[in-house]
């Protein structure tokens, strides 16, 4: 899923300060799963903002609404009326959702309430880890299912750097060295010999470096 973290309250408060009627729009998919912008988070944030403004002698009127996803028209249109009757929208969706809401409602200021970070997994309760950078050309089979593009701090394709220590990355001792993981798994699968094979430089054109991407599926258009 896409993982993100809700922005600090102080930052959000500053962004919404100019508006007297605010809609906090939550999203029930990725950001709900990582506790950043689902229905519960919308309710808590709304209450926190009301208290914070009241404390300073100010006032803000907040409407709360959560839709299934903010990356599809089918769900966004459910928010149309709510958006129209407020001065601004604080979207707790990922960056994609925020942008879609902004593009569908040209007259409404749309503010981001979440910092979108990565494509990842729920490793265990309360722990989300980055797994995929969306390079557009997956060769996970070459690396026994562990991606060095997203999980090696240096995107090395041919083995670990000299900073790998005790299976951890030199950048952060909490971060596993992806190459240690690849080597361990290769050993477990009896595939250590594969590691001597030279992996050539990546063609980055399929990644974001080649420009913003799109997927067209005419075969699904009626």
């Amino acid at each position, binding site marked *: 899923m896409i993982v993100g973290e809700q922005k*600090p*309250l*102080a930052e959000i408060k500053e962004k919404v300060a100019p508006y007297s009627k605010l809609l906090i729009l939550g999203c029930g998919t990725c950001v709900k799963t990582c506790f950043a912008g689902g229905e*519960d988070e919308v*309710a*808590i944030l709304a*209450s*926190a903002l*009301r*208290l*914070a403004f*009241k*404390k*300073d002698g100010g006032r803000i009127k907040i409407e709360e609404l959560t839709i299934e996803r903010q990356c599809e028209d089918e769900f966004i249109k459910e928010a149309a009326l709510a958006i129209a009757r407020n001065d601004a929208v604080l979207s707790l969706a990922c960056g994609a959702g925020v942008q879609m809401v902004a593009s569908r409602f040209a007259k409404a200021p749309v503010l981001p309430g979440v910092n979108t970070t990565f494509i990842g997994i729920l490793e265990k309760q309360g722990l989300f880890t980055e797994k995929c950078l969306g390079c557009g050309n997956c060769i996970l089979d070459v690396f026994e299912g562990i991606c060095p593009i997203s999980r090696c701090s240096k995107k090395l394709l041919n083995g670990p750097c000299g900073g790998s220590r005790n299976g951890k990355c030199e950048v952060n001792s909490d971060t596993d060295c992806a190459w240690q993981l690849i080597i361990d798994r290769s050993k477990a699968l009896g595939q250590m010999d594969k590691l001597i094979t030279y992996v050539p430089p990546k063609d980055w054109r399929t990644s974001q470096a080649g420009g913003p991407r799109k997927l067209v599926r005419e075969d699904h258009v009626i």
Partner: protein
Amino acid sequence: MARNLATTSSTIAVSVNTEQYKPQITVFHCFNAFNNITGSNSSDYNVHSIKMPCSSMTREVFLLRAFEAGADAVIVMVCPDGSCHYIEGNIRAIKRVARMKKLLDEIGLDGRRLNIFQIPHGDQSAVERIINQTVSDLAVLGPNPAT
């Protein structure tokens, strides 16, 4: 014996606050911890109690809304370790209160207004002690600035 959790309590010297106000205290309690709060009628303070079937029903938004409704302090009372009828309710409540205390600090309301205690079933004297403690704390903290 009640155990005080996740609080950053100041020393309580009950000094007379020149700005007298009548503290509003909201208590969320699991009804397995105890059934009723007695001694809740006093001319010096007001206790508003909310019963929950399990402390896992301590939802963060309710704690904040209690402050929006005018509470000066919020107390959560739950069962001791190992006694929760629904196994983890008290653990979840403790975590949620910890999160909300931090958020209250960020809001500027002071996280010390919110506290959680583990009460053995029926320990009425513990309840009274806690309420009295809270009233004393409020003499120092003052009224909820967001009312």
